[in-house]
């Protein structure tokens, strides 16, 4: 559709690099400027604290008319993130607005790590665990964080 990179993507990329949001880093791949390697640090006072989570983010041709595609690459025990790393977040689906940006998306994901929402689940068994025994679920999430989210 568009051969030249839209000005908006260039601007967003520049800003992501020049003034990154705390705890978030996003760098475009060298061979594809629409593909971003994302790292989110587990928020403090969450079961994911201390973890380093890798994600991939891809901007489709009709971005910003459609939402970016985002996925967790690091295994994570979270009621709104499934085994394949897909995220259940309204703004990535029906609530997407072209006025949103990569930055806001990543901040929203970070917020989701701080406040899991088991009532709107994607990974059903995890959400069930969260609802029936939150304490145990949180400790499992911490375990997974230690196990999988410790590599650079």
């Amino acid at each position: 559709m568009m051969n030249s990179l839209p000005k908006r993507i260039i601007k967003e990329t520049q800003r992501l690099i020049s003034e990154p949001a705390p705890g978030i880093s996003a760098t475009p791949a060298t061979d594809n400027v629409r593909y971003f390697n994302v790292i989110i640090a587990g928020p403090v006072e969450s079961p994911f604290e201390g973890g380093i989570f890798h994600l991939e983010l891809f901007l489709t041709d009709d971005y910003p008319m459609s939402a970016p595609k985002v996925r967790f690459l690091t295994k994570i025990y979270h009621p709104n993130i499934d085994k394949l790393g897909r995220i259940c977040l309204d703004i990535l689906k029906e609530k997407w607005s072209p006025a949103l940006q990569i930055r806001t998306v990543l901040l929203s994901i970070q917020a989701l790590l701080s406040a899991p929402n088991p009532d709107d689940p994607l990974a059903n068994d995890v959400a069930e665990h969260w609802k029936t025994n939150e304490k145990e679920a949180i400790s499992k999430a911490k375990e997974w964080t230690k196990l999988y989210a410790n590599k650079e």
Partner: protein
Amino acid sequence: MLEKIKHLIRKSSGGGQSVGNSNSSNGGGNSKKLSSSTSSLNNQEKKNNKKQNKSNKKLSKSTTNIIQESQESIDSIEGIQPFSSGSPTHTNTPVNQYIQNSFNSDFDQENIVENEQEYSVSPLPCNIIDNQSDTSDSIAIDIKIPPPTTTTTTKQSTSFLRTVSSQLLNITKNLKHNNSTTTTTTTTSSANNNEESKEDESQEQEQQNSNYQSEEDCSDYEEEQDQDDEDFDDIYVGLKEIDSDNGKNFNCLSPDQLIEHQHKEIKDIAELLSVPINSAAALLKHFNWKREVLISKYFESPKEISKEVGIEYHTNFNNNNTTTTTTTNSNNSGLKSCTICGDDFADEDVTFNNCQHYFCNDCWAGYLTSKINEGEAMLRCPHHKCGSVIEDLVIQRLVAPFVYDKYLLFSTKKFIQQNQQLRYCPTPGCELAISVRVDSSETSSESVQCSCGYKFCFKCHRESHAPATCDQMSLWEAKCQDESEVSHWKIANCKKCPKCQVSIEKNGGCMHITCAKCTHEWCWMCQRSWKGHNDFYVCNRFQKEKESKRFLFFGKLKKKESTEEEEKKASLQELERYLHYYERFINHENSRKLERVIREEAMRKMEELEKANSTWAEVQFIEKGIDQLLDCRNILKFTYIFAFFSFQNSSQVQRVETAKELFEFLQEDLEKTTEKLSELLEDIMKKSITLEQSQRLEIMNYVNFAKSKKEGLLNAITKDSLFEF
């Protein structure tokens, strides 16, 4: 407060009633008014934009407020449902071939569908039309919702019985009328008419009089050519009147009229809520055109609703006075940054929505176009979590004209879906919609006719099925699915000559069959000799002996233990009864299909005649005749479904038995008239270019008879007067 709302709803629904007829003179007035007010709104909007341009700071503050407060309360947007197709169009292909094919292929359903797309009424009544589910769940305060459907057929008949009103006289009058028309039938050819006997006759009778009158004139044809032409025009006008005096309680609306209809609704709401037109439009769309919901919610909390929908809240808005309480803030114009593309733009290259969010025109166009292409009928501000409705005018300005047309189509569809008085015509490719009048509480009048010619049931979207009810149609379809399909097909299309036993396939609409082998003339319906058929045989009745036997049989059953054999017999009897009705139902259905082919032929014939030496008015009667014939066929077809369910326990209840007899009398009468009309028309088609006056007049008379008999039958059914004895 509640009382006030109720009052307003009532008031508003009163306004709604007149909507149905808005395509006439007052419609133009409305649109004029509307356009003037929209232009003033346009100005207002420009003003707003200017004001807005002046303060960026204030703007961003207000937007964040909106973001926080609008939140999730926005309704999820429903997708557009595709409308059902699957209805007959009126093109024709040789049906003989069709029957041949289908029959040879041992009833291959797919084959039929393939061969016979133009009818799409498949030979089995069970697939008549896709049943469109009604998805609307709007709260209708002013609309009479049809009574809950009766689940069993016995209930159906008892409900008929219960509604004994005081219309005994009516049916006797009907009968009288019928008798008198029958007597006139015999005298038509001689053109005698006794005006004294017409005391309380209807208009149609007068119509006939005028026809006789003109016949007398016609005898002087050669001498008074000019005057004669005038008379033919009179005749034509007369026929036309027959068509138009149906007492229609529905209108056919074009796409433009539908939009006008929407504007009218918007205007009503604007007046009712004292808000500007564009706000009213946004409110209505936000609430899916459910005006009652909108009204009650708006009166509850106008401020919150206004915010949610993204319109300005007016404490006391006057439609004539466009000066409103907008936040007037100036700002030295600089470049504006579009949050979608990230570029900076001059003022004229960005567009503000009512919610004060703005984007560059290209991004707007991209966003709106992609949403419209997704089938979205409800466009809202692209800003995150802003539910503000975007006005049509803004959309029109920003997108390509063909995209805007698409949008109008989607939003009109949505509007129709939410409106209980509106339905799209089910004919594929037909863009018209039918609007029924709110005040037509008569549940019997579901049958509507689109300007494209297609008649359908407003309630269930099937092809028009009077006098059978929608419930009976559903039961019938289920019933037909149960029975063997192959046997249906054979019963319907192939019979053995009663004399020489050669297999005969029906290839004309007429029930009068002449065997090609032995020249025996017989009736397709009852398979008896045609000779004297009209006087001695009645072929529309399910023979009484059969039925009384059956019920005697059931009487025995009650006393004795039922054996397997007896049960078998009973189900066989029941099947027999069903097949009796099915056979007659499908006979009329097939005749109707064949007669549709004749319609094409008739059109050619009319052209031919016109070229030869007749005037357009002179040949018009052929079309009228064919149309009346098709109409009667359809009614007759469904009388058998009606009868199958309505007289189920006729032998047990005397009243039902009487009603059945009366009904069959009327049915038979109409059947005879229809057959006669069919024969007369077939004759015309065979004839050469010379057209005899007597033929023309005979057909015209039969058109009138058929019409009045049809109405007599329908009236007897719909007014339940059948059961009043």
